[in-house]
C-alpha cells in the first residue's frame, strides 16, 4: 500500500510491523516524531508493546539491553548527543551480543550545540561493533528496519539504521507500506539462544578474565579475548548473511538489490563519487549534469558502513581513474572516516595490480550547512580535472 509520510513515520511503521515488544526512548531533535508516533500506536492499542519514557538516553539503551537479555524484541532511537550519551551502553550491547535495532537520526554533535544534519554522531560510533546501515529514502528506511531485525536476531549483533535528520526524517515521500502478513512471514517471533529466567539461571556479562578458565562442568571456557574475537569474526561473516537477508526480503516483498552499495551510472565511469545517505541521491543530479558535459562520472552510495564491505567496494571501483568521497563527518585530526576506510580497502585489494584509483576527500554539510547541488557539481567537476588538495576540502565553507 503506497502512502506519503515523513521518514520518522516510515521508521515508526517499520518498528510497528516488526512487533517490537519493548520500546525505550528519550526525546532529542530530530528523532522525537519517531518515538512520539510509537507512543501513539502503543496508547491506541495498535501496537502491543511496553513504552518506557526513560529519563536519559543512557537509560534508554540500558532498558533495551536488559529487556533484550530477558527475551524481548526491543527498539530505541536517538541522535547526536543522545547517541554520544549512550556510548558506554553501545559498546555494552555489542559485547553482550544482543539483537537490538536502533534508528539514528543523523545530527551534528556539540560542542557547540547544533540540531541540524551531519553524520558525526553515527560515524563516531563506527568502532563499537554495531552494524551500521545508511538509508537514502523512506522506502529504504522502512525496509532496512525490517531487514535489520531479521539480521540482528540471526547473528546476535545490534544494528544502527541511520538516516539524515530533517533531510529524510522530516520530509515527505511516497513509499510502499509492507503488509503485516508479509512482515510476519519474513520475520518470525524473537527466539533468543538464552533469555534470563529463574528456571535456567545464569550470570551474564560478569568480570571476564584475560585468560581462559575452566567452567563448572570442567570445560575450558573463553577468555575476554575469545569473546571479542567472535564478535569481530561474526561481524565479518555478516557480510555474507546480509546478502541472504536481501534475497529473502526480495522473495517476499519483490524489491531489493545490492545490500552493500547503490551504484548509479558507475559501470563505464572514469570517476565515481562516493557517499553515505541522502547526499548520494543529490549527487545523482550532479552526475547527470556532468555526463551531459561528456565527463564519465557516476555515484556510489555505501549502504553497509560496518561491517565494511571492502571486497565489494574495491571490486566496484577497480580500474577507475578517481574516487571522490563526499562526507558529512570526519575523524578529526586526519580525514573523513569513509575516505580512510575506502582507501584502505582499495589498497588491500588493488595495490600492485595497476588498477588502484586516486582518492579525494570532500567534506560538506557540517552542522547542516546547506549543500547546494551546484557546489557539488562544481567540486566534482574540479576533482575529475585534477587533485583539489591533499587535506580534505571543505565545500561551502565561509571562513
Amino acid at each position, binding site marked *: 500500500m503506497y502512502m506519503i509520510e515523513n521518514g520518522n513515520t516510515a521508521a515508526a511503521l517499520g518498528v510497528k510491523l516488526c512487533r517490537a515488544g519493548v520500546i525505550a526512548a528519550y526525546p532529542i531533535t530530530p528523532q522525537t516524531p519517531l518515538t512520539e508516533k510509537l507512543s501513539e500506536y502503543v496508547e491506541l492499542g495498535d501496537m502491543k508493546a511496553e513504552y518506557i519514557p526513560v529519563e536519559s538516553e543512557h537509560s534508554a539503551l540500558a532498558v533495551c539491553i536488559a529487556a533484550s537479555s530477558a527475551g524481548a524484541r526491543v527498539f530505541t532511537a536517538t541522535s547526536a548527543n543522545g547517541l554520544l550519551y549512550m556510548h558506554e551502553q553501545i559498546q555494552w550491547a555489542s559485547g*553482550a*551480543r544482543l539483537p537490538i535495532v536502533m534508528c539514528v537520526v543523523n545530527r551534528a554533535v556539540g560542542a557547540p550545540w547544533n540540531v541540524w544534519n551531519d553524520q558525526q554522531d553515527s560515524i563516531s560510533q563506527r568502532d563499537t561493533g554495531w552494524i551500521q546501515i545508511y538509508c537514502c529514502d523512506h522506502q529504504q528506511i522502512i525496509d532496512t528496519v525490517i531487514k535489520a531485525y531479521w539480521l540482528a536476531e540471526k547473528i*546476535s549483533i545490534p544494528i544502527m539504521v541511520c538516516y539524515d535528520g530533517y533531510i529524510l526524517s522530516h520530509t515527505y515521500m511516497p513509499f510502499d507500506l509492507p503488509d503485516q502478513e508479509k512482515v510476519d512471514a519474513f520475520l518470525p517471533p524473537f527466539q533468543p539462544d*538464552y533469555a534470563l529466567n529463574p528456571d535456567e*539461571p*545464569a*550470570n*551474564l*556479562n*560478569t568480570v*571476564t578474565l584475560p585468560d*581462559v578458565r575452566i*567452567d*563448572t*562442568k570442567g*570445560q*575450558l*571456557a*573463553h*577468555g*575476554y579475548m*575469545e*569473546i571479542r574475537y*567472535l*564478535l569481530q569474526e*561474526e561481524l565479518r561473516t555478516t557480510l555474507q548473511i546480509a546478502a541472504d537477508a536481501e534475497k529473502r526480503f526480495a522473495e517476499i516483498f519483490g524489491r531489493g538489490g545490492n545490500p552493500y552499495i547503490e551504484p548509479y551510472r558507475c559501470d563505464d565511469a572514469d570517476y565515481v563519487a562516493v557517499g553515505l545517505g541522502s547526499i548520494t541521491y543529490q549527487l545523482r543530479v550532479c552526475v547527470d549534469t556532468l555526463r551531459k558535459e561528456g565527463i564519465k562520472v557516476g555515484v556510489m552510495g555505501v549502504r553497509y558502513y560496518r561491517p565494511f564491505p571492502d571486497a565489494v567496494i574495491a571490486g566496484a571501483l577497480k580500474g577507475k581513474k578517481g574516487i571522490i568521497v563526499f562526507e558529512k563527518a570526519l575523524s578529526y585530526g586526519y580525514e573523513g572516516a569513509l575516505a580512510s576506510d575506502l582507501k584502505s580497502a582499495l589498497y588491500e585489494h588493488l595495490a600492485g595490480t595497476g588498477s588502484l584509483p586516486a582518492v579525494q576527500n570532500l567534506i560538506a554539510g557540517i552542522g547542516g550547512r546547506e549543500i547546494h547541488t551546484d557546489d557539488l557539481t562544481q567540486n566534482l567537476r574540479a576533482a575529475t580535472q585534477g587533485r583539489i588538495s591533499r587535506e580534505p576540502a571543505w565545500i561551502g565553507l565561509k571562513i
Partner: protein
Amino acid sequence: MGTRNYRRKTSHSEHGPGDGGRTGSWRVERPVLDQSLCIPCKRNKEACFICWLYCPEIVISRTIPPQFNLEYCKGCGICAEECPTKAITMVDEAHFSEQKKDKE
C-alpha cells in the same frame, strides 16, 4: 588449548561453589567448637544456630553439632564472636598439621 567448541559466545556463567578457589587457604585461624558449651548440642534439639545465621561464607551447617566446611571457611571469626556461650574459639592454623583432613 582451544575454546572454539565452547558453546557460548558471550560471558555467560553457570553457578557452582568455589569461584574464589579454595578460600579455606585464606585463613590464619579456624573455628573450633566445644560441643559441651553449644546450645543445640546440649539440648539435642534445634536451637540457637546463631553461628549458622551470621556466617558470611555459608560454611556452617544447621546441624547438631554445627559443622564447619574448612574447604571454604575464611576464618573471619564472626561465629566465635557471636556465639552466646563462647562455644566456638578461633585457633591459629599453625596448630593443625598438614596431614589432618580438611573436613572435620
